[in-house]
């Protein structure tokens, strides 16, 4: 797998095409996505009243979006009352400035991080490193991609693109374990990572995590994980900073519970993740553990604008279970890096298109066959294909692709349509010349190279007419 620092959403098409030729990557993705889908399928099979729970979860998210400004203010009040310092970040730069400011303020030399997509979104690690601190990702998958110098390639499984042997080779080189064999087992590798990370937890001055949900009524931050590294990141260091994108707020603890019934089942096929932390403010006087100082950074970074769009705001319902990635045939084929931004797969193509500059993301909504597997999988009922179409409309903005425009013109003028098809039938019935027509996308040549086109035949209408005439005459 290539280093991904050069991957951008602008080159999505090229990157996708290249990734689809990478047989190793495809095998790894195939194995991993099937594994996740299998676990998820079994969990949902055994989930009594599944549809009711899905509806409740969707309703909790809809409530949050429809009352967002009020809920965020309520969250600020209740979190502050619990002793958490609340910060507002309009964009990525402000988000970075706030967190690096806290790091400098507490003289942080070692920073441990829990897995968080939002801190990837604002490129926090390089900014923290620039303050002179060591920054350690403590989620096993994130730790692996950090050692490799790569971004994560899946929302919940950051190193989904790496095989066990890839990881062994990486640990050999980066952790100075010359004797480590390629056939080392996953428990062995995990233990090695654990050993390396324990020292960092104990030395850490600052813990930084994301947020799965923030509860407006109580000011609590909820974190869902399986490895215990997030719990350690929030309890070992004296200072904890939680960074949330603003749509992660929910109204009540009951709403949070409705979401927690669905999130782990959809993400990993678990009834509940191994750890769920509900953090309300810093350590109190009578408590033995927890951070002495708690911060909550609420990040906008383009989301307010998305909220203003009555259709596209639906993308903000997402609670990042990652199931749409696993179910998407395109993601299964190209993986996460090809998307060239933090968020990948169907929801990633939507979020990146909404949050990044339009000129960089033109191709993202087109990397979709409209098969609807994502929509069918989404426990919150997000209609990704419909949103994808809305984005295509925006990209196209009255200037349609000329093939589409020509087709649209002909199709609303039946006589011209028949003449055009008739001319093509006379000149090139087998459509051999098709890929060589000037101005047509180069993909057409590849299409015809790998697929025998059916050719233009005597039309259905003509054959039906002839047949009926014969019948009538007989």
């Amino acid at each position, binding site marked *: 797998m290539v280093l991904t620092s050069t991957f951008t959403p602008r080159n999505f098409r090229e990157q996708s095409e290249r990734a689809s030729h990478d047989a190793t990557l495809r095998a790894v993705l195939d194995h991993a996505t099937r594994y996740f889908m299998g676990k998820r399928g079994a969990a949902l099979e055994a989930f009594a009243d599944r549809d009711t729970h899905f509806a409740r979860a969707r309703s909790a998210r809809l409530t949050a979006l429809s009352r967002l400004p009020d809920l965020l203010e309520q969250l600020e009040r209740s979190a502050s009352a619990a002793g958490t310092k609340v910060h507002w970040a309009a964009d990525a730069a402000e988000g970075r400035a706030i967190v690096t400011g806290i790091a400098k303020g507490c003289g942080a030399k070692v920073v441990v991080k829990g897995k968080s997509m939002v801190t990837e979104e604002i490129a926090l690690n390089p900014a923290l490193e620039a303050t002179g601190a060591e920054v350690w990702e403590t989620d096993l998958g994130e730790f692996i991609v950090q050692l490799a110098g790569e971004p994560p390639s899946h929302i919940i499984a950051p190193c989904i693109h790496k095989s066990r042997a890839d990881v062994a080779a990486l640990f050999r080189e980066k952790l100075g374990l010359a004797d480590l064999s390629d056939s080392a087992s996953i428990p062995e590798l995990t233990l090695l990572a654990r050993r390396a990370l324990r020292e960092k937890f104990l030395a850490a001055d600052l813990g930084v995590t994301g947020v799965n949900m923030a509860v407006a009524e109580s000011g609590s931050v909820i974190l869902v994980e399986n490895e215990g590294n997030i719990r350690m990141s929030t309890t070992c260091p004296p200072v904890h900073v939680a960074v949330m994108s603003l749509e992660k707020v929910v109204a009540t603890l009951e709403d949070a519970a409705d979401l927690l019934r669905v999130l782990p089942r959809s993400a990993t096929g678990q009834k509940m993740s191994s750890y769920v932390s509900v953090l309300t403010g810093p350590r109190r006087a009578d408590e033995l553990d927890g951070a002495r100082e708690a911060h909550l950074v609420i990040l906008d970074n383009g989301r307010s604008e998305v909220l203003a769009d009555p259709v596209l705001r639906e993308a903000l319902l997402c609670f990042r279970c990652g199931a749409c990635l696993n179910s998407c*045939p395109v993601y299964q084929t190209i993986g996460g890096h090809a998307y060239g931004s933090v968020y990948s797969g169907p929801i990633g193509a939507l979020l990146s298109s909404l949050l990044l500059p339009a000129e960089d993301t033109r191709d993202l909504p087109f990397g979709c*066959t409209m098969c609807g597997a994502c929509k069918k999988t989404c426990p919150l009922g997000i209609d990704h294909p419909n949103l994808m179409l809305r984005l295509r409309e925006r990209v196209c903005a009255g200037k*349609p692709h000329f093939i589409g*425009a020509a*087709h649209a013109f002909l199709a609303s003028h039946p006589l011209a349509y028949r003449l055009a098809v008739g001319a093509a039938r006379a000149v090139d019935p087998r459509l051999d010349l098709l890929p060589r027509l000037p101005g047509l996308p180069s993909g057409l040549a*590849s*299409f015809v190279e790998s697929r*025998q086109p059916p050719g233009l035949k005597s039309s259905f209408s003509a054959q039906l007419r002839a047949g009926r005439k014969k019948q009538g005459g007989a």
Partner: protein
Amino acid sequence: MRIQLMIPCLVEDCLPEIGLAAVSVLERLGCAVDHPQGQTCCGQMAFKTGDVAGARAQALHSLEIFADTGAVVCPSGSCTKMLRTYPQLFEPGTRDHARAVELAGRVSEFCEFVLALPGAPDFGGELKARAALHRSCQLDGSDAPQRLLSAVRGLTLLEPERPERCCGFGGLFSLQFPAVSESLLEDKASELLALDPDLLVSAEPSCLMNISGYLSRNGRMTGPGRALHVAQVLDLALNGALTGGALWS
């Protein structure tokens, strides 16, 4: 029962055999089939490439063509879906919106329509074959093709490991992302061929074109007539012949 047949543009000019088989089956099952003149395209291509104005123009054209009340039947899931999408192209409260809603309410995909005819699903057809079905994501999870095929005597219905997984076509997608499209297609083709079928069957003409064109190009389609639309399978089973001839013959 009188019905209006909607013929996808792909079928009209490239795969007419599918349309002819559909007519044969519908007539055999007692329907009087009208084929309104002037049909072009449902507007799906424009709609899916973001050209809503183009799609709207095509929708207006279809509204004219199928203005007569009564069932509209179409041997394609994706075109049927497009007709059902027309209402969202028009402002609610307008005359065109009302017409679009009215049309959307009376269009059926071929298999769904046949399955609702009296006597369904067992019309007494017989065909000795092992048929591998590609369900097609464009049918939105409809099980009508499976139910119709299961009722054909002598037919063994086979389904690939991931029956609803996309074949990689996706219209413009296959031109803009040809390598990704071909990867998906290869997955689909191998899963279907692993069933060792006599026939490859789908209710979606575009998927059928994609899959069988690929097998044909790569010398993996042993003999013409191996790839069939569900309408053609029913035609063979009920009438003992392929009215319009075989695809790729």
